[in-house]
């Protein structure tokens, strides 16, 4: 799986989870700002992502991550 595919799947999951049109989300978007969510809601999304990719990511891996692309890189490194 390439980084682009992973990023795309994460955007799809975020769109479903937060009920926003997929077309509105871009890899470089700041998800806190774009989705108007807090750090707990990001953890909710992370759980969804873990289930999808069958991986486990400690909470601390999200520290300092604010955009989908960097999130995808963290996921990709565990695939």
């Amino acid at each position, binding site marked *: 799986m390439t980084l682009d595919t992973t990023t795309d799947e994460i955007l799809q999951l975020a769109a479903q989870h937060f009920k926003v049109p997929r077309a509105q989300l871009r890899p470089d978007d*700041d998800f*806190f*700002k774009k989705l108007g969510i*807090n*750090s*707990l809601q990001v*953890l*909710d999304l*992370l*759980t969804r992502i873990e289930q999808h990719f069958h991986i486990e990511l*400690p*909470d*601390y891996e999200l*520290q*300092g991550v*604010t*955009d989908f692309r960097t999130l995808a890189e963290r996921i990709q490194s565990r695939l």
Partner: protein
Amino acid sequence: MLDLRKYNSLGEALRAALETWPGEVCLIEADRDRETARYTYRQFKEAALPLARALQDAGFHEGSRAAIIMTNQSKWLISAYAIFFCGGVLVPLDYKLTADEELKLLKHSNAEFLIVEHHLWRAITKAAEFSDLSVRVVLVTEAPAGADLAGAKRWEEFRDAREPVFVARQRKDPACIVYSSGTGGRPKGCVLTHENYLEQCIALTSLYPFWPGVRYLSILPTNHAIDFMVGFIGPFTCGAAVVHLRTLRPEYIRDAFTRYRITYMTVVPMILKSLERGLRQRFDELSRPRRRMLNSLIAVNRTLTRRRPNPQLSRTLLRQVHAAFGGELRALFVGGAFTEPATLQFFYDLGIPVGNGYGCTEAGTTITLNDFKPFRADTVGKPLPGMQIKIVNPGSDGVGEVAVSGTTIMSHYLDDPEMTAETIVDGWLMTGDLGRLDNAGHLQLFGRKKNMIVTEEGKNIYPEDIENTFEGLPVKEFCVFAANYLWPARTMTGEQLLLVLRPDSAQPVADGLAVKIADRNRLLLHYKRISGYVVWDHDFPRTASMKIKRTELAAQIRERLTRDAVVPL
């Protein structure tokens, strides 16, 4: 519980606790739904003393400073006890800071020893300023086999079976240096004494006692003053147990309640609201008749607990709600930021009292706390026993700056007598918060006098700490302010930071400036970001040493501009 008046130091009190309840469980560590460690008081002692001895072998002595940078886990508390046993001063640092920020505070604190989780250490070793690290001994926890530790030692192997020497300390000696801010600007290292902590613990446990069998769920960072007190010192000196959860995922927090039959937990408003949302969602999914039944039971509970909480009655009336919280929850505590009264009332009506409090690190954690006699959603409670509050320069409505005195007020700011003198005036800690005491002696808060914000995650953000991020913008000068400092508002929620820009006369506000600001803003952690900017067409007032006169500048802006001048990002 121990009579803490008899002890001179945290080390002495904790040592007595370990001898008093050897067979009781004191600490459980869980990662998601997996239990990863469990200690009785005896086992905790057996884990900590070899570490204490190894520290002494490495030159740790009375007054040595040791920093801890770790997420909530058992090794945090074991390490802290070993440090106190050796008569050391603990420097608990926030594990959520950037590596550069950690290095800055390590340097300022003069810590000789550092105990740090491997992933955090890895980030520190990659920081630009790493070569400046002056810590003598670094212990790294949970490092994978074969990992390059950059000169550090493995915590798990750093032990010596010989008996360590207990080092006594006096009540007025420093116990901890806790940074309340200053990662980007002027570090505020609050020096808190053993007396500060012992007296705070006496006051808090007089209102909310712990006892053997009580289980406290610790999810706030242990470096935070609240968790250090109610998720470590309080339970341990009463023979109770702390449950560390190494994740903040809401589903695992819910799971921990039932798995460990939790008695107390402290949260920040953001987590409390998340719990509220989850409950409301479940209520909305009920069939109409069941929802009507639930509403009736809530109304009955509200009526019958109006004067004081009645846990047994509430558990009987609202059995399923309480079962979801493990069935033994007595209270939640909320602190770190302002909580909306409607949320507090929601939980109280369900028979889950939320002890809403107010405090700051400088005051040794808690200043006021609700005692439920009766429950009040509109205040932050009454001063803790031994704590005095006065309202300085009150207006006609009684609102003025909250000043506090008592035995829990910090000794001073580390290496900063000037800031100490500005903050502690004639023995009174000036909090910078605006409030009023009502006729029942409850404190109500109405906003801030000081230039800072507190997020619903309980993070205190000082503008000076983030200004560096905007260095190099194509403007003549700039400054960051809390919006409510520029234009005072009687609210403590939804606080925002703003950038004030003075354009260069030769280069007026350029196209693309907003993009440049946004790019830099993204370099900050999400809760530290500015939400907009203001263009200001006058030179900033400055001191002879060219420091911005922030108070004067804010007054000028307040006089000439309104909030409408803010350009949102």
